[in-house]
Structures are given as C-alpha cells and as structure tokens.
C-alpha cells in the first residue's frame, strides 16, 4: 500500500517546451492518501493518460518528482514500482488457465509454492471464480478476463497502487454493474490505493472517493462526487459532470440577486466579482423547477428516459434543460424557478464564493 505524492509534476512531449501550451500536462501537485480510491476524469486528450503513464513509470515527467510513500520513484522503471494495472482491453495469458494466470506474478518473483497456492486461492474466492480456476483464460468473456487482470494485481502483497485504465470499455452494460460492485468490494477488502482513469463520469463518480477532473492538460477540480455535483469550481466541471450538464446562463449581479435577461433571480447570498469579469450563473437541471412561477421558459424538446423526463428549452435566449421526475406533469406554459441552494456564480468561468 502506498501514499502517492505528485510533486510539482509537468510534462511535455516536446524536447524544449517554452509556452504553457507546449505542456501536455500542466502542473500537478497533489498527495494521494494510502488506500484511497481516486479517479482521473476528463475528455480524450485532457492529459489523464499522460498522468497515469507517469505514475506507472512509462513516462518520466519533464519536471517534478513522483514519490511512493516518500520514496522518490521518478526514474524507476515500471517493474520496480510495485504497481499493478488493469488495461482497457483485457490482458490475460491465453495459454494459461485462470489459476496459472493469477499465480504468474508470484511465480516470477519466485515465491514458495504453498504461499502462491494460498494467495491464489484467496483471490479466486474473493473474485468468486473458484469454479473457473482450471479453465483456459482465453475461453472466458471480457468481464471475467478483466476480473483476472485485477486478480493478478491483488495476489501480490507488495503492490502499492492499482491503476485502472478505462477498464469497463469493452464490457456490456449489465456486466459493468457487477464489475463495478466487484471492484468496490475488492477495494474495501484489500485496501489498495486505486487510480481509475476514465472519460465516463458515472464510472468516475461511483468508483472514487476523490475525483480529479482534467481538461486540456490541467487539473480543474479535485473533490468528492458531491462537491463536483453541488459546487463545480469551473463551468467545465459543471458541463462535464452530470447528464445533461449544468446550465450556464449569462447574468449580471445586483446585490443578492442576479439579473437574467429582464428578470431577477434571487441568490443564496451576495457575491463580489472582480471588475469587468464575465458573470454567469450555473444551475444543474436537477435544480430547475418547472411550474407556474419564475422565468418564462420555452420548451423545445422533451426526452422521456424512463425514470425521468429531460425538458430542453430556452430561457432568456440561453439553452436550458430541466429534469422532471417520472409522472410529474409539464405545465402548458411553464416558468422556471431555480432552487437557491443549487445556484453557483461564475466569474470568467471560475466559481466565486457566495456570502449570505
């Protein structure tokens, strides 16, 4: 088990980076606690894979250091780092049985036979695949193969961190649920530090205690799923997390209210924005109430997604969506009201604090 320290890390694929845009990964400085579940979340090209490769030792960062439990491993190769990794596409040794696959990392490290057998047995039990132990790994389905990849990390006692690189990409929706629950259970049982890389917000939020949201090589917010949902620090986080994402509406501040178009929206408190900043208010569709009161809302489309309906429309010229619970009626000429708790204020896309 390990605490991972990312000490002022920057990385550029260019030999002599000069401008900030030359960096594929802009400065990252974090300490990840031992036994934590972390997710790196962002669209493709946001730098999350670069960061993962720095942690796994595939890339040496241009600047900064990486420490495992205080020990500098920046220049150590992958095999010397005591990490395990689960890849996007299941990696199993085709010619070996499930049991041999799990024993492989231990055999390579020349552990005694009885120790190997005991640990393999334990992991087989944990993964609930004892009945498959003597099947050829090549004959299994994708989700079971991912289980084995995970198990190969779990059998080693020296493993400090387990890295998961979009591990559910090729898994069917129903198996995804099982694998996610499995992962959660294994994390609880073994307590490894886990780093999960994905572009899928649901996977990130449901897996991690702490989610690191990245875009364009930059970390924009590190927080718990609740923080990311309720208090997105940047409008990108608001957009990227949530489905549909947060509504961002241009506004001007007037004391404890915000003017949206011709109407006033009351805020949970006053806020002080830097002079000349572009002000927007962010409201998640979950906090938009459609009824008889509030701002005029023109409906453009309604999507029935079963357990709820997503109402798309415009409000003061800006596209806004709202969520209606299953069975909740949609008024003929709806008006939108924002729940005060759900309103965040943004100056030049960054969130500013509200003082009641």
């Amino acid at each position, binding site marked *: 088990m390990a605490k991972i320290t990312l000490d002022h890390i920057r990385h550029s694929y260019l030999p002599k980076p000069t401008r900030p845009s030359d960096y594929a990964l802009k400065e990252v400085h974090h300490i990840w606690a031992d036994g934590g579940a972390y997710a790196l979340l962002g669209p493709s090209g946001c730098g999350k894979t670069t960061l993962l490769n720095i942690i796994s030792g595939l890339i040496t960062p241009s600047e900064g250091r990486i420490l495992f439990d205080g020990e500098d491993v920046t220049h150590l190769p992958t095999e010397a780092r005591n990490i395990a990794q689960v890849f996007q596409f299941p990696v199993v040794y085709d010619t070996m049985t499930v049991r041999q696959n799990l024993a492989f990392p231990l055999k390579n490290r020349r552990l005694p036979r009885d120790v190997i057998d005991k640990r393999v047995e334990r992991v087989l039990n944990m993964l609930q695949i004892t009945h498959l132990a003597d099947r050829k790994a090549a004959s299994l389905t994708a989700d079971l193969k991912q289980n084995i990849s995970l198990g190969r990390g779990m059998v080693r006692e020296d493993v400090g961190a387990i890295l998961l690189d979009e591990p559910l990409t090729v898994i069917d929706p129903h198996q995804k649920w099982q694998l996610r629950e499995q992962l959660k*259970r294994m994390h609880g049982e073994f307590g490894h530090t886990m780093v999960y890389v994905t572009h899928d917000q649901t996977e990130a*939020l*449901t897996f991690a205690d702490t989610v690191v949201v990245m875009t364009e090589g930059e970390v924009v917010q590190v927080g718990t*799923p609740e923080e990311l949902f*309720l208090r997105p620090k940047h409008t990108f986080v608001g957009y990227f997390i949530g489905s549909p994402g947060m509504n961002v509406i241009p506004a001007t501040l007037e004391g404890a209210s915000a003017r949206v178009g011709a109407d006033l929206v009351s805020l949970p408190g006053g806020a002080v924005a830097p002079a000349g900043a572009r002000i927007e208010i962010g409201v998640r569709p979950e906090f938009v109430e459609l009824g008889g009161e509030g701002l005029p809302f023109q409906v453009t489309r309604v*999507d029935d997604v079963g357990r709820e309906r997503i109402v798309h429309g415009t409000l003061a010229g800006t596209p806004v969506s709202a969520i209606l619970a299953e069975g*909740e009626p949609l008024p003929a000429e709806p008006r939108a009201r924002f729940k005060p708790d759900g309103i965040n204020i943004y100056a030049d896309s960054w969130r500013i604090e509200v003082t009641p």
Partner: protein
Amino acid sequence: MLELKSVSKRVGSAYHLSNISMTLEPGSLNVLLGPTLSGKTSLMRLMAGLDRPTEGSILVDGKDVTGARVQSRDVAMVYQQFINYPALTVYENIASPMRIARKPRKEIEDTVARVAELLRLTPFLDRLPLQLSGGQQQRTALARALAKNARLVLLDEPLANLDYKLREELRAELPKIFAASGAIFVYATAEPEEALLLGGNTATMEEGRVTQFGPTVDVYRRPNSVATAATFSDPPLNWGRQLKVGNVFRPTPVEDELQEEDIPVPPHLAHLPDGKYAVAIRPHHLKLEPPTSDAACVRGWVSAVEITGSETYIFMKSVCDWSVMLVHGVHRLPPRTPIDVYFELRHLMVFDADDQAVMQPESEAA
C-alpha cells in the same frame, strides 16, 4: 418498407437468429437493444443483404429480396469503428457514394453542403479524417451514409467508441438528423439509456430472438416478459421468483424466519390463481422512505453503495432477490446495514411461471 418474415439464421446447428418477424416503416427509427452476441449485428447483416437467412424471407416494399446482393439493396451502414477513406478529404468522403453513383456535380455539391451543415462538419471539409477528433470522424461516416440517400441506413453501435460527453451530444442530435431523412433507420445499441434517448421503436433482443418490438417508451413501461424488462433496464432489473398464496407473494424457496417478508398482491391482481410468479420492480421505484401512505415494504441489507454526487445506488441483499436501488440524495450506508425498502404496488411488474407478463404497470403520464 422493410419486412422480415419468420427469418432465421443458422450456422451449423446453432441458431444465431431464430424466427424474427418485424415490419419497419419508411421514416422510422428502430433500435435493436441487447447485450453483445444477442444477434443485433447478425440481424443487421441480414437486413443489409450481407448474409442470407437460412429460413424465412425479406421483403422491400412488398418485393422479395431474400437472395439479392448487398449492392442492389440500397443500404448504407455505419460501424462502431470510425470507417472513412483515410486518403480522401472529408468533402470527398461524404461525396464518395454519389461519385460512385455518377451523380451530377451540382447535386453532389448541394448534398455535401447540406449534410455537412446538418452534422456540423462544414469547417472541416478540407481536412483528412485522421486530422479530426473521434467524434468528427464518426460524424463524417454518418454524413457519408446520409449522402448516399439510401432507403435503409444501418448503424451498428455508432457511438460506442466515443467519449461519454461526445456521445451525449451526438445522441441528442441524431433524432433530428434521422427525422430530416425519409429513410428507415436501424440502430443497434447495448445501452437502454441510449434507446430511450433516441425514441422511435425498440426491439429488445436476447439470444437471437426479438423478445418485443414496439414504440420505445411502451416497450420500456410495459415489457411483455422478464427477458424484455431485464434487457431494457439499467441499472439491472430487480426480480425474483415468488409464490402467490392468497393475497400475498411469498419468496421461493420460503425461509421460515422471513415469513413476514411477504409482498401484498396489488388489488386488481387478486383474481390471479395461486401459484408461481416472477415479481419485478425497477431500481428507481424503490425508496428509503414511504412515498405514499399505502406503500409496501421489504427488508434488505446493504452490500455496497455508489454515490454519483446527487444520487446513490444501493446494492443490497433481500429475500425477494431484489438487489439494487437508485435513490435521490447522498446516503453513506456501511455494508450490512439493514434497510427498509419501500415501493408502490402500482410499480410492480408481475410475470407468470413462463416469465410472460400478467400485469404491466399502469402507464405513466407520457
């Protein structure tokens, strides 16, 4: 109009598709929903004419085309992988089917301009596919399929390789794009949410069979069998086998200590004969607090929770084999916490011993 009449596809002794009949109207969007290897791709290959059915016939506008080659079928196809001509610009990629059909230059220019506008590719027409993002590459493939102006457009999990947010964006645009064309669209996906967002009709598939085919929301709300309900549920459907004894459903096998876990039989089902049934409910219909005064309740034990920020998935063990609930708010419940799980009787789905629906939940306001 495309009609499949009792179509089957056998390879060796194994049926990849068995006895499928469906009619697809021009201008309709038809979703094939099912897990990997449920037969979605095999069915599309039959529709395209890439494969020939072992039994049954395929009719286009009433004409039998069962043996006809793919070239004579007037179909376009979009795949999960982004397939474009790498050496041609986006413009030429989109124009390629019309060039092959030797369309006049004016028509090609107009069509490419229109389709590119629709798919927001206008600024990229001079680029090569590999200089584009994944989303734009897939838009190009879609544009080419639309430019072909085929009568039948087949899309095989076209969004599966895209980032989550890109998928969301394109998914919202697709129904508009489909509506603007008069073709028959067939769209395969493994994700129930995608089927709901696309609307149109849905055929749920399981092991080479179409278990139900109808308007998407109807199939979702009134599944005719356990198979349909389970396929069309994400998170997974909660269901278990129960024994109806008088006016209660009792879990089977009956465990003595848990006799009080009976579920009341909804009043309008009181007439059903006693016997074996399957009782199911969707995860979001389960609550931690009683939603109304006449809600029923079962006991469960938490096995894990997942928090999305605004909602919580609670995985649990329960006597009636229900295993997951989706509730609003954040609930940090440690494993093995006992919970009371409430639900309204009108949300129960009841299936007979053969897993066929005997009662479908009342339709919600749609």
